[in-house]
């Protein structure tokens, strides 16, 4: 008797574990017949998500033919997976917000997506992409300049530093070192002055590998960082990057640098006053403003002596138009609705408001000029808010194929691989050079698999 109960219990428990939640289902409440309803999935948490949904509400109020229904679908990777599952079930949203590392996957998605240039041509909509910052435009366009997705929230990486700590270490709080050599000296001085954590880095791969490669004008991968074809191979074991990684590992050992964890985990170390310098997303600004109990400054990313820095690349997300399912396209009315929404968010005043509300980049030059003319950057509270834009235009805004962006399939996985190999180096299990070589080998396997899966697709 007891035995039977035990068996039943064991199977019941096993059963609970096996039953996986069903894929998220798209909500399509009935719309008024005259109005076209556009579903829009985004991956921004509050307060950003609310500001984004407000833009959709404002758009709905501005006209009568289209109603955009924006809904939060979890973090960026979760939104991506939800959209893919929905597509396979013929339920995909009209518009999905996709983070920049998913760009390569979306580009290769064939009939799952409606390229932006086709959408605009078919609906006779014009958006002046020449007005967009080159780094923003380039990340989401084909090599011939045709746009594939609608750029929206974009950030770049900058340095935030604690001016009070700089003063304590007898460093000039108003002149952040331009070079990595200078940063290392400053870190040494900070440590000598009793700062437990002189510097850290959020988004280790994005800031220390991707941005580093772009501003030093060295390739991250062949084929123009993947823009020219799926047969790209990683090049992150080049001498300059290996030198930088070796330095980071050494600085970690010497107590000058602290590895704060993957993705945005290190963000918290700066506003709390724990670390005196952080390499982070320009979007961290709002949080620092809210939480930091000390004087702080913003600076452009440093470079190694003997190199000439050029523009940094962006992070963030863009909006993709999706077909409903593997064998279902969108009606003319639906396409018109999506195009109208995109034209609405491309307006300078919408882009400018998003920039000043959130700290993301103003994606167009006109929006930037508008904000500057309004005197926003001159206010003491907003000091340094234009540093990310200056850095995006560093080197005269003449991008090279190394600073356009990154277009690699399976890049989410490659980022994780680089982080894992770096963590092994920080633990002392391997040298920085071995870490980079291993990351190249493992990353190339991902690239070859992606190429094979999308051959002909």
């Amino acid at each position, binding site marked *: 008797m007891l035995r039977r109960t035990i068996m039943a*219990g064991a199977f019941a*428990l096993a*059963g609970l574990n096996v039953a996986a939640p069903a894929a998220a289902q798209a909500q399509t409440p009935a719309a008024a017949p005259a109005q076209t309803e556009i579903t829009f999935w985004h991956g921004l948490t509050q307060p950003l998500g609310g500001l984004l949904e407000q833009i959709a509400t404002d758009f709905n109020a501005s006209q009568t033919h289209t109603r955009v229904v924006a809904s939060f679908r979890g973090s960026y*990777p979760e939104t991506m997976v939800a959209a893919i599952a929905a597509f396979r079930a013929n339920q995909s949203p009209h518009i999905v917000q996709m983070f920049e590392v998913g760009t390569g996957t979306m580009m290769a998605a064939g009939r799952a997506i409606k390229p932006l240039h086709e959408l605009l041509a078919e609906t006779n909509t014009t958006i002046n992409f020449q007005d967009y910052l080159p780094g923003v435009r380039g990340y989401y366009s084909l090599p011939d300049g045709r746009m594939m997705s609608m750029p929206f929230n974009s950030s770049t990486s900058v340095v935030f530093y604690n001016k009070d700590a700089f003063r304590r270490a007898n460093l000039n709080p108003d002149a952040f070192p331009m070079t990595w050599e200078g940063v290392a000296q400053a870190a040494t001085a900070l440590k000598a002055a009793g700062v437990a954590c002189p510097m850290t880095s959020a988004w280790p791969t994005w800031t220390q590998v991707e941005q580093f490669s772009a501003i030093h004008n060295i390739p991250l991968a062949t084929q123009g960082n993947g823009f020219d074809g799926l047969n790209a191979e990683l090049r992150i074991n080049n001498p300059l990057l290996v030198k930088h990684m070796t330095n980071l590992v050494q600085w970690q050992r010497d107590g000058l640098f602290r590895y704060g964890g993957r993705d945005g985990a290190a963000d918290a170390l700066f506003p709390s006053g*724990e670390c005196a310098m952080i390499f982070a997303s320009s979007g961290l600004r709002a949080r620092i403003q809210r939480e930091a109990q000390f004087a702080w400054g913003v600076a452009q990313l440093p470079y190694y002596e003997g190199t000439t820095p050029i523009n940094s690349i962006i992070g963030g997300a863009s909006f993709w138009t999706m077909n409903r399912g593997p064998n279902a396209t969108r009606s003319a009315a639906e396409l018109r609705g999506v195009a109208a929404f995109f034209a609405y968010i491309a307006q300078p005043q919408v882009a400018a408001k998003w920039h000043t509300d959130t700290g993301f980049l103003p994606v167009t030059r006109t929006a930037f000029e508008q904000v500057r003319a309004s005197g926003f950057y001159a206010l003491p509270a907003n000091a340094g808010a234009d540093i990310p834009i200056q850095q995006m235009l560093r080197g005269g805004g003449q991008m090279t194929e190394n600073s356009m962006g990154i277009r690699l399939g399976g890049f989410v996985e490659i980022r994780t691989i680089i*982080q894992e190999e770096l963590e092994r180096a920080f633990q002392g299990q391997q040298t920085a050079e071995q870490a980079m070589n291993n990351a190249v080998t493992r990353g190339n396997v991902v690239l070859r698999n992606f190429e094979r899966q999308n051959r*002909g697709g």
Partner: protein
Amino acid sequence: MRLRKKVIFKGTALPWLLLLPQLIITGIFFFWPAGQAIYSSFLREDAFGLSREFVGLENFTDVLADPNYLAAGWNTVVFSSAVAITALAAALFLAVQADKAIRGANAYKTLLIWPYAVAPAVAAVLWLFMFHPQIGLFGRFLNGIGIQWDYKVNGNQAMLLVILAAAWKQVSYNFIFFLAGLQSIPRAVLEAAAIDGARPIRRFWTIIFPLLAPTSFFLLVVNIVYAFFDTFGIIHALTQGGPGQSTTTLIYKVYVDGVQNLNFGSSAAQSVILMAIVILLTAVQFRFIEKKVHY
């Protein structure tokens, strides 16, 4: 003890009808997904399912040749056995203490059962707040007394942390079963042993422990199944499988490859391997270990 009453149905229609609901549920929720996983494990496809290719056993050979997969297998062995042993030992100790005639025993028991109601992700966050090297109470304390505590760069510390968090979560469950098992042991046997001069420790090992064997065996199975499949939330919230891949277990790798990396073929092949391991493990447990258990 066992009574068997055989009911003979006339014809086969009624028995099939009676079995049907159960068969439908089993078919839809067990065999269909399992079949899908096996089918996908022979395919390679892009994320959107627009092109697929039959690759035979290639997903399996790739996975088994991957040193990271084998390392994840080893992590799983270390993690599961440590979680099962820690959770069982701690729960048994607590249950024996709670079974004694103590003041406020009921409040004490209730408090011990609480952690079971905590969701895995919340449990992980609690542990994070205790052991985070910069903001955690114990994390700061450890660093303060000179122990270099940082589970973000130290793989062994990360493993220790996820084991503790996962085991803590399971102690309550084990505790309830052990307590019930203890309470079903006849007092007369224990009193007789006490009169014969057996000390508490001897009474525990010669009477209580053997009589608890069926409960312990059941809990062992459940704990290992738990450590294999249910600890995903804790690992995801605490370490995300890192640093390096030092806390990546087999089930976590299935998630990473399938959901994050959108590599469905490889993920399905890993699920099939995991399914085979669990079938084997359960069969071994019931066939060999059960023989040593006296009901």
